[in-house]
Structures are given as C-alpha cells and as structure tokens.
C-alpha cells in the first residue's frame, strides 16, 4: 500500500521529493529493512510531521531525506538536485547552503557563545547573514539577552531556540527537525513548535519534522504515518485527537 502523497493544492512547487527510497542494514538473511520504498513530496511553505511507532523508520526516513544517511536505493531530490549521487563534500556543501537541522539533543558547540553558534553555519559557508534577518530571528526567538552566553549557561529550551535560530539563519530550502521537543518540558516544547510554525507562516519556510508527540504533530499542515518502513497514511490539517486516534489504530 504505497502512497504518493501530493502537496496541497496552491502551495506551488516541491522542494524535496523522495522516490522509491529504500534503506537496509546488513545483508542476506539477517538484513534489516528500515525503509522499503518510500515515496513522498514536500512543497514549499509546508509543515509536515512524520509519525510512526518506534522502529517504523521515521527517523531513518528523515536522515535519508536530509542527506545525513546514505540510501540503499531510490533517489532524493532537493530542488532539482539528486543528493544520493553527490560526493561527500558536495553533499556537505549542499546541506550547509540549502538545508537546516534541529536535533533532539541540541548539538551546540560548547566553546562558542550563543551568537557564534547561531552564525556558525553561515560563516562556515563564508556568508555572513544580513543584520536585519539575524535581528528578527533573534528577537522572534527571545534570545536577545542571551547572545553572549555559552550553551552550558542556557536552559534546555534556550539551547533548542539557539539551534532553531542557527538553522533558520541561512534561509534553508528545507528545515529538518528530528524530535526537536524530545528533550524539553511541555512549555519549552510548545515554544519551539510555535517558532517553527511561525517560520512557516511568516516566511513560507518548509519544515519536515519527526515526532512521537501527537500534540506536536498537530501544529503541522499534514502528518505522514510510517510503519514498517512504508508510508501507511496521511492526515491533512491534523488535530491532536485525530493524530492520537490514528496512532492508536496503527499500534493496534
């Protein structure tokens, strides 16, 4: 039961497309098939949540989509580039210039201040973001007073906001978020989700987020459900209850 999920009408071109994506670990009898041919497309300005029970392959799917993990077969188009055919360094450059990431563990560099962490990706690419864009992100995330602090001096929520700011500053074509609220309490988590939602609404930012929290998924424009390495369903305009019900059914 393969589903080709179409973007909602009126949202324009696809910025990321997965075609027949398969990923397996090991070989022969003992091979584990994490993805068994996944097809999906993500339109500009769309906020997609990916859900599924543990072991469904949802994180693997996100990693393959974002070029963090190699695929066994199939292709991933970011814009018009098939990233599965890129060399390591070309892939790094593409990730740096066109994609953004937010991880469950915040992954800030401990020796850099908040501001340096935020600017890091852009600077590694040799581009300094314009002041205005930096200011508007920092103010939107409420980090103004924290810019000179080091990660160890920030709360978890603040650290994750720094990570979001870092990801947004390069104006990525797609922002990937892997359980961004997993390490946060519900209030801080809600804040971070609010910023992601705001970025989608205000700047037409494309966001793809893996989560296991129905409340988080409810903030997305649509939810893709994965089970056993395949997409098993899709829900547009989700609410927490709808997502919850669907998950219940899937987990049986």
């Amino acid at each position, binding site marked *: 039961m393969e589903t080709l999920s179409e973007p909602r009408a009126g949202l324009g071109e696809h910025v990321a497309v997965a075609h027949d994506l398969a990923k397996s670990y090991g070989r022969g009898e003992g091979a584990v098939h994490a993805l068994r041919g996944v097809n999906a497309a993500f339109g500009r300005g769309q906020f997609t949540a990916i859900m599924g029970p543990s072991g469904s392959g949802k994180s693997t799917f996100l990693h393959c989509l974002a070029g963090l993990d190699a695929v066994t077969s199939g292709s991933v188009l970011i814009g018009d580039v098939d990233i599965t055919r890129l060399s390591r360094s070309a892939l790094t450059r593409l990730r*740096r210039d066109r994609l953004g990431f937010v*991880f469950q563990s915040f992954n800030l560099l*401990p020796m850099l201040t908040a501001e340096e962490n935020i600017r890091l990706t852009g600077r590694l690419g*040799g581009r300094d973001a314009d002041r205005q864009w930096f200011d508007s992100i920092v103010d939107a995330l409420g980090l103004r007073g924290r810019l000179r602090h080091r990660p*160890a001096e920030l709360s978890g929520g603040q650290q994750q906001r720094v990570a979001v700011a870092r990801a947004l500053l390069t104006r990525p074509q797609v922002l990937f978020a892997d359980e961004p609220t997993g390490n946060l309490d519900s209030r801080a988590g809600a804040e971070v989700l609010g910023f992601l939602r705001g970025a989608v609404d205000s700047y037409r930012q494309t966001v793809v987020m893996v989560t296991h929290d129905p409340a988080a998924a409810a903030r997305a424009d649509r939810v893709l459900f994965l089970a056993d390495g395949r997409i098993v369903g899709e829900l547009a305009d989700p609410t927490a209850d709808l997502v919850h019900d669907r998950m219940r059914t899937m987990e049986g």
Partner: protein
Amino acid sequence: MWLIARRSFTTGWGRLAATLAAALLSVGLIAGTMQFALRAQAAVSGTGASEFARADVLVQGGSVDPDDPHAVPDGRVRLDRVAGRPGVAAATGDATVPVTAAGADGRLVMPPAGARTSLRPWVADVRLNPYRLESGRAPAADGEIAVTRHVADAAGLETGGALTVGLPRQTRALRVVGIVTVQGRAAVAAGDLLLAPPETVRRAAGLPAGTWQAVWVKAAPGVQASGLARDLGHSLGPGTATVRTAEAVRDAQSSSLMAEGASVAGGIGMLTTVAVFVGLFVVANTFGGLIRQRTRMLALLGAIGATPEQVKKLIRLEALAVGLIASAGGVLLGHPIAGALARLFAEDGFDVSVAEPSFGPLASAVPLAAGIGVTQLAAWRAARRAADIAPMRALRETATEPSDRRGLRIAGATAVFLSAFLFYGPVLAVLNDSPPGPERTIAISSLIVIGSMIIVCALAVLGPLLAGPLGGLVGRLGMLVSGEAGRLARATIARSPRRVSSAASSVMLGVALVTSTALIVLSATARFDEAGGEVMRAEHAVSTTGKTADGMRPLPRDVAGRIAAAPGVTHAAALTATDVKLVEPAPRAYTSDQKAKPLYVTVTGADQAALPAVLNLGGALPTLAPGQIGLPSTLMDAQHLKPGQRIVVRGKHGPVPLTLVGAYHDPSHLFADGALVAPATMDLLDQNAVTRAVLVRGGTAAGISQAVRGVPGATVLDRPAYVKQASATITEGMNVIYGFIVMTLVLALFGTATTVSMNVGERRREFGLLGAVGATGRQLRAIVRWEAATVVTLGTALGLGVAVGTVALIHLATGSSFIRPSAPWWIYVLVAAGALAVTLVTSSLPARRAARVPVLDAAQGD
C-alpha cells in the same frame, strides 16, 4: 572496582594502547641504559682476573707509581738476582709493552672498556703460569703469540690466524698459535694480553739480556709471601726495586677497577635520569589525556555512588596493569637498546663486549620496578583529577574543562620552579670546591640539566595559562587566513587550554632536547674549528685511523723522518705524548679542606726547531732545551708554579727533574693541552712515547701519502680535516649521547603523537557535530591545523627558551668557550620546522578520521 578496571582495560584496548606503548618505550629506555650500565660495569670491574694469580711476590725494577696499579715499573731487575734466593721456589721475568692489535681486515681490536692491549712474555713455569690454553699451543718461536680470548673473539681469529701488531717502534705481523683465558676470564684487569716468547718481549721493551722490568716469584712451600717480600726487599737494597706481595697488587688492581666502574655507572646514571624523566613526562601526559577522554564515564561512576577514593583506585589499578605489561615488554625491549648502546660506545673506544649481556635479576627486576613506579607516579595526578570530577558532568553534553583555579596553578608552578634551584644552587658550591677542568664542567652541566628538566615541568604546569592568550593570537591570524575555521580553533583553545598545553609540553620536551644538544655540539665544533685553525700552521697532518682506549691509534716513530724526506716538505714535526705524574712540588688541593689528588699531565713532545713553523701557540714560551718543560698558564696558576722553578715528574722510567721555563696557551686544547717538552726530554720521560700525529709544512698531500705508504692506518689530512679528527677524540662519547638523544627523542615524539591524536580523537563528537552544521572536511582539517599551529608555537617557544637558557647557564657557570648559546639562525628555523612537521603529521591522520565521523553518530548524542 577491580571488575570495572578489568572491563575498561579489556574494552578500552585501543585507547590504552597509546599509553601502553609510551610506557613500554620509556621502560625500554630505562631497562636498556640499566642493562648497559651493568654490562659496562661488569666489563670494567668484573674482569677481576689478574695475570699475577699464581705469583706470590712481585719484584719490580726501580720505583712504581703507587697510584696506578697497572703502572709499568721505571727500573730494571736482573732475573738472576732474584732466582735462587732462599725461599724462592720459582721466578720468571716480566715486561709490558703497550701495543695495538689489528685483525686481518685491518680493524683495530678494542681492548675491554677503559683498559689497554699489551705485549707480555709467555710464562713457561707451570707454578707461575696463570694462562690456561683454550686452544692451540704456547708460543715457541719469535713471530708466534698466544692471545687472550677477547682478542680472538674481537678479531674473529682462530689459532693459525695473523694479527698486525703495532709496537712502539715498528709494526709486525704475528701468528696466533694459542688462545688463553685467565682465571676463566677472556681478558685481565689490565686489558688484553698478547703473549710472545720472553726473548721477543725483552727485545721489544729494549731490555738487556737477563734483565726485566719485573720478576714474578713463587714462594717455596711453607714460606709466607709477606715475609719473602720483606727479605727480598732487604737483600736487593733500597731504591733498586719495589717488592710487593702479588696479593697487594691484585687488591690495588681490583679497587681501581671498582672506582672506574663507579664512574662509568655515574655517567650512565645521568643518562638514565633523563630517560626516566622523559618517560615519566610522556606517560603522565598520556594518562592525563586518558582521563579527559573518559570524563563522562568517570563522572557517571561518581553519580552512581563510587567514592573519589574508589575512582582513584580504579585509575591506579589501570596504571598498574599498564605498568606491568609495559614493564615486561620494556625489559625485553631493553636488550636491543642495550645492544645498540654497546655498539655506540664501542665506536667511541669503550668496548664492553668482554662482559656478557646481563639477564640477571638486577637487570630485569629494577627496570620492572621502575616501570611500575613510573606508571604509578605518572597516574598519580591523573587519578586525583579523575576523583575530582563532579558527578554532574556526566549529565552534560560534551566534555568541557571546568574552569581552572588560576592562583593555585601559578602557586604550583612557582613551587616546582623553585625546586629547580635545589640543583642550580649546588652549582656555586661545585664551582668553588673543584678545580677547573672537564670533570667540573660535566658536574656543573649535569646539575644544570637536571634543574632545567624541573623547569620544563614548571612550564608544563603553567602551560594552560599561556595557551589561552597565545591561542587567541594564533586564532586571530587563523581567522584572517581561514575564516571561520580559525575562529573555531581559537574558541576551542580558549575553552580547553589544558588540552593544548599537554600537547605543547611534549613538543617542548622534544624541542628542548634537540636544541640543547644541537647548541652544545655546534658551538663546541665551531670553537674547535676556529681555535684549531688558528693554532695549526701546518698545511697537512699525518695521523692514523682508528682509536684506542687512550685516544687515537699511534703512529710508528720513524714516520716523521720518512715524511721530512718527501719532496717540498720544509718542516715535519712528530707530536709524541705520554702521561706523567707531578711529584714535586706535591699537587695542591683546590680548597684547604680537601685532600690533594694525584695530578697526571699529558706531555706533548715536539721538535723545537720545527714547532714554530707548524703550531702557533699562545704565550711567550722560549725554545725548550732538553730538561726543560713548558706548562699551560691555567695549570701554573692552579698549582702556584713560577717560571724558573724546578719540578719533578714521574715518567715511565722513574722521577725526572725538569726546569719550568714558562707558560703557554693552546686555546684549541688539541695539540699540547697538558705540557710541552723537546723530543730529548720526552725520551727521558718515556722512551716508548707514542706518536699521535706528524704535522707537515710544505709538500703535497700526494707526496706525503707516497712517503707514508705501507704504514698501517696512516692517513694524510689537510688542516680542517685534522682539526676535525683531533677534536673528535676529545668529544668522544658524543656518539653515545647522540644515540641516547635519538632514543629519548623517539619517546618524546611518541608522546607528542599520542597526545595530539588523543586530543583529536576525544573530539569525534564535536567534529561530527560541526559536520552536521555544515563544516566541510577541508574546514575540519583547517581547524586541526590552526590548533596544531598553536601547539607548535607554544611548545617550540618554551622548548627553545629552555634549551637556550640551559646552555647559557652552563656557559655562564663553567666559563667554557666551547659551550655557548650561540648558534646559526637556521638551527632555530630548522627546529621550529621540525616541530611543525611532527605536529602536522601526528594530527593529520586523526583529523582525517575525525572528518569522516558519520554526522548521525555525533548528532544523536552518545
């Protein structure tokens, strides 16, 4: 705890491997020097065999230097005046002729460490004969010899082979008909013996028929040796002979050997100290890295209830395991190292092969204990630091260093720094209490070197405080060149100065070792070249290749005459040399509370007419007539001697009165460092004085070569080449020091490699993270390179500072013009470039590996 220690030991093999290897190398170095020291000591003092083993009484002609048990008597004894006396059962004549021996391939046979090779008569009387034939037969005809087993082994000879023997006045090929041992040993305390029929030896020693330098006596049954000695002394009359019991001579021989062995052990002990220090430093550094790497795990242990004492114990147990394995391996590794040292020493004329390599408990147990001790001591600080890790740090994301207590660090460094003065301080005392000379220079240098090693430690403690600001500077440069990579490097250094400084301190150690050696060697060589070139007027010198324990292999005496006859030669002056002892006035002690030591001086004999043409000596020494002597001004000052004074010296043939006519100065110390006499005076001092070189004015190298054709080993050298060769005999021992420095350097390099690669390795996660946020492999390598630049700058600057400071201190303290902290600028550039290359090479591999860390591994945490 034991379980955790065992588990982390077995699972953390890779991590521990570097520490293990560093410990192994340093224990190997300690064991190697130790085993060599034991072997050298055995070679020097263990050959306690005496050729007087069977004799009861020795009757030596004239008088004998009581301070030298191997001295050749200066008078003669007729055998028939001793043989047949009451109480004498058997008597045989003895003479000693110093010789050199070369095997079939022309290579010189080195006598055992510190001893000589001499020609002695074969003793036919079984009651006196100490020589046991291992193979072959006794020498019967002129041209036949028996040799001690060491000679046969060293020359690769069997009976029937030939030895080229350099006698004082000629060179002869002698056939080896027998190989002997003495008291089961391959050589005697005096060295190697070539045993020829008595008549051959008598003629070589220039003795009339029936006359000998000494007579060995066997007492009749029931006659006490001491009583017989007294009787013989009375009947021969005072002044004509020295009569002693053989036992007294044997005792004197063995105690002189003990003293020599102790001085060898002392010198090697100094080298061992450096080895232990470097080992300690390197192992401590790697242990520190090991703890940093495992901060999380250790903190976790703390969080789940391990007490700081338990954590300490855990680290100590690991250190014990590392120490045990490394020590066992190191003891094995020590044998090839000891072998290499033995070869290096042999090249410098100090052959220890007469003693077997030592596998005894001392050679194994002591390095084993030293290895365990070193690793425990090295882990001490690491264990304390591990115990200090707060459990909270287990919960943090990435390991960052807790902020340092600056004051404490400065206080610690100051304490270490001050303790260096425990060694610097006594320098002044040594300076006041001992006479100038090589011994004092060495004693002072040793003290200063040990002091400087402690300074190295102080700087290592201080390192983290220096790393931050320096990292800021280098990072700024890095930002200009590499942009963000430079900024990241700078931020990393500012946050983890300890990591940078631990790598920098290994670089510092290596740089300090190399630079100080280079400075000393270069300044000494430059000074010898300069002074030697000034003093030597002759264009050519004829010398020989190969060395003996006493310096260069001597030339036969007739060579000077042959060279003088060569076309174009205007002057040819042979430089002969012998050692004499100052008898009158009695040598002065350097300070009033010390006992005066016997004063031996090497006298150079030179043709007075030719001398001004070939040598340009300082001072205003008149032409020396027979019976006159000139001394260096330093010696005259030290002994309060005045020109015109009568002095008495003991030469090879007894006391000789001489007139001191004046002072001179040989700034090169190469030609006439001890004293100067005319050839006629030299004959009074030592008829068989060896010719070290012939200095030649005029003529061509080819013409001179033609004249000395057929003289074994004779080579014609131009001025710079001869100066180089002559100075090489003074700086002998340098080969060993080079070898040793190389081994220590390997250890220091290893330490650098381990620390640098551990530094990169422990940041796998950080590099992966950087990769996740978009750093390319090139950028990651740039970060590592800029950090390396900081490490190199810090390490090189400190190391150069220590080296230059050490050499400057030695120069100041000793006043020696041969050790100066001035070297060509390229040395510093070379050392810095070397340090840079080492750091880049050692960091590039782990950096490459780090750049390949899968992003996901890092991004998902551990």
